[in-house]
């Protein structure tokens, strides 16, 4: 999520917002390369791709054109472009979620139809390309309050993103014999307007090369009152920043890198080296070399070695588990003199060694349930607890009901003056059960509860269950609140109806 919410144009439709770009060798098969781009930061479980955007990953052949303070990476045509467009939704079978399909167009003109969230992905008949698109766990580790340079817990814990993974035969597609170093970017571009003039392409919504170009380097928290250049940057053409704007962006990068350098009170970058670093970052594409090993720690090694005047040793790139923020901050603050480590080095879930390499999404439903056996028969118990607005719970000070039957709301005020609003979704007096949804007051999303009284011999059993979407560190709090509520309520029934013997 290195590039997330980096300008007003992305905030408009979050599914247009590119968060990250990856380039690595397939852990399953070293003869294949994987390129991946993520969109829609912190999306929930039902997220879908926009059908009004072309999502592209674009590769160009690169070469080193200078070392040390003269570092320069240049790229050349032709572009190797992978584009994915998604359709509107198709109705699923009754009760099923809608289906979304898309089409991936490869550099050789082949196309491939894909089904969103199909774990196996789709492959071209000759096996050259394989593609996945769908919801995955966000692998980014943002364990810093960057504005204060303070290590923190992973701020993206339990987040999901929409992920596009394209895997291909390296030799057939990239022809590394002609040069094994490449630069890659990802971009989101809206579809053209109706009757738009040829040659007037729509303005790009977002693009990303190396991680954190926008949110860390161009929007440095230490530069007070500096104009926000991120939206202007996003409208630039990748691999071809407008000549007229290069000085503006370069100056910002120099100011920003100088501020990071001095953050620890020690100058690790000479002015000439800092300018070289800024110039390198201005040419914003993710470098990877398919002839060398790409590992979890090789990210930016190509750039760093070149700036240090040495020949690079690794394939650079970016793997799913690369801790790119620690790598970047260490480089720009102290030029790798001392490793800067965030509050954690683990993402919510690690990447996988098999296709599609990005971990399954975080969708864990949390469950709380409790029950009690009572001496009284079920009808007698239901007479009291079956009233949606019944005030029998010792932790409840008062309940107000609005409306009657399914859809009615109960507004609960607890004895510690907290408000809870719940809506009755289903009532079945013959089965002595009702189901409700929390509208507000319980700190969990998608919370539904079920209350039921069942016969149990001559007596009865009261069951109370709830499920809600987990949110990581808050889960324990919610579980405690809900289980206390259940236990206290159910225990109080023993005094009224007697415990079953």
């Amino acid at each position, binding site marked *: 999520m290195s590039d997330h919410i980096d300008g*007003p*144009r992305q905030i*408009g*439709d*979050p*599914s*247009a917002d590119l968060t990250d770009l990856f380039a690595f060798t397939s852990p399953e098969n070293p003869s294949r390369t994987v390129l991946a781009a993520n969109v*829609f930061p*912190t*999306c*929930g*479980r*039902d*997220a*879908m*791709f*926009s*059908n*009004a*955007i072309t999502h592209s990953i674009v590769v160009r052949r690169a070469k080193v054109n200078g070392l040390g303070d003269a570092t320069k990476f240049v790229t050349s045509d032709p572009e190797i472009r992978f584009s994915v467009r998604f359709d*509107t*939704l198709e109705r699923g079978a009754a009760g099923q979620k*809608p289906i*979304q399909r898309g089409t991936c167009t490869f550099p050789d003109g082949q196309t491939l139809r894909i089904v969103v969230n199909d774990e196996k992905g789709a492959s071209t008949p000759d096996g050259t390309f394989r593609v996945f698109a769908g919801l995955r766990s966000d692998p980014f580790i943002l364990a810093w309050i960057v504005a204060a340079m303070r290590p923190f817990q992973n701020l993206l*814990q*339990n*987040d*999901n993103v929409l992920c596009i993974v394209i895997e291909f035969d390296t030799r057939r597609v990239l022809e590394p014999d002609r040069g094994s170093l490449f630069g890659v970017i990802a971009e989101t571009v*809206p*579809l*053209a*307007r*109706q*009757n738009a003039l040829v040659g007037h392409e*729509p*303005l790009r*919504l977002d693009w990303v090369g190396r991680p954190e170009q926008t949110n860390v380097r161009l929007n440095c928290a230490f530069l007070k009152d500096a104009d926000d250049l991120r939206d202007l940057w996003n409208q630039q053409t990748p691999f071809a920043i407008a000549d007229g704007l290069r000085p503006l962006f370069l100056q910002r990068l120099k100011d920003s890198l100088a501020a990071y350098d001095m953050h620890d009170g020690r100058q690790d970058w000479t002015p000439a080296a800092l300018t070289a670093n800024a110039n390198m970052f201005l040419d914003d594409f993710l470098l990877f070399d398919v002839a060398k090993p790409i590992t979890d720690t090789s990210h930016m090694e190509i750039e760093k070695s070149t700036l240090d005047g040495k020949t690079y040793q690794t394939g650079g790139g970016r793997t799913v588990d690369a801790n790119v923020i620690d790598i970047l901050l260490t480089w720009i603050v102290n030029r790798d003199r001392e490793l800067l480590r965030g509050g954690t080095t683990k993402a919510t879930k690690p990447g996988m060694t098999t296709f599609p390499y990005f971990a399954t999404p975080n969708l864990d439903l949390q469950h709380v349930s409790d029950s009690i056996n009572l001496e009284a028969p079920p009808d007698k118990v239901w007479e009291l607890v079956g009233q949606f607005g019944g005030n029998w719970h010792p932790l409840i000070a008062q309940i107000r009901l*609005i*409306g*009657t039957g399914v*859809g009615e*709301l109960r507004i609960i005020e607890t004895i510690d003056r907290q*408000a809870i*609003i719940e*809506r009755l979704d289903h009532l079945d007096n013959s089965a002595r059960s009702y189901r409700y949804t929390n*509208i*507000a*007051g319980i*700190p*969990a*999303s*998608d919370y539904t509860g079920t209350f039921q009284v069942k016969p149990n011999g001559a007596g009865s059993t009261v069951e109370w269950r709830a499920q809600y*979407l*987990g*949110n*990581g*560190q*808050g889960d324990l*709090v*919610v579980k405690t609140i809900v289980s206390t509520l259940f236990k206290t309520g159910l225990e109080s029934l023993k005094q009224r109806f007697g415990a079953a013997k």
Partner: protein
Amino acid sequence: MRTVAGLDCVITPTTDGEIAIINLGSARSRSWSRFFADPARDGVAETVIENEQLTLQFVGDLSALDRVALLAVQLDQAKPASARTRLIQAQVASMAHRFSDARRYLAEAEIGRAPAAEVDRLRLTIDQACGNDLHSVLDVRRRIATETGGIEDLVALGSLLADLRDFDAAHDAYRHALQAYRDVSPFPIARICFQLGMLWRELAPNPNPALAGSWYRRAIAILPMYTKARVHLAEICSAEGNSGEAEELLRPVVTIGDPEVDWRLADVLADQGKFEESEERMKAAHFGFESLLERHLLAFADHGAEFYAGSGGDLRRALHLAGVNADNRPTPRALEQAHSIAISAADQVVAL
């Protein structure tokens, strides 16, 4: 030329409305999870509010107001007395039309050194909603719209010009907003289409239902579950005697829980002679309005007044609610509504 088709070529293709609504629900749910995990973290509560505002406006899910009201309480517990909390409380109060509360929170936010631009922006919105010194508001709106050229600022300007009865200028501001739009989110475009529908049916001195209807249809084509647009278009269809289409527009959004849908559908069903179902719908409308008025009186006083002055059949209640609304925000429209209901009530007394 004021046609819908004439503007087709300037409108950017936007994300399909069904996908956008699913993604809004998805983002809204996740933003709440993040809020529950860390309510005090900068930006988290603000994102929830943005998502809930969109849900309220475009889905018609009125329980969004209940949720943000509790968010404001929880945030105040997590981060009391901060300028940021006060700004959010002001925003939440403004959403529920509790403008006096909103102004008080804004003043406190200002004392706490909240960013001046955010305070000024919200204060301007409140002034506009309350009809307070609208010509000064207009000067500021014009300046901001010229400076930013942003769609939100152009729409706010258009809305104000419409309130000030400068309909041609309002139309131009909306048209300019459509031309300026470069994003793919369908919400802003749908909103402009809806505003243009309102302009040519509800606000213009010589309403043009055909033109208004075409804008509402455009809004619904972009965002099929746009409840407010469906309700307004259904009214036009009913007035033209096309109760079948009105029913088709309203049925899919009955489950949203907006009592105005129940009310309009009850009227449509009565026109079709389906009296039993009409009565059921009218009961639901009564219940729905009373439920909303109990929880958010100021937010729904004008809607409630319109309901009770119409098929709700209680002019005394309507008059009271119209008075509450006019006291809260004495805009020309609110005063007109109160005046009109008062005359109807007087006529009724004379008739008795």
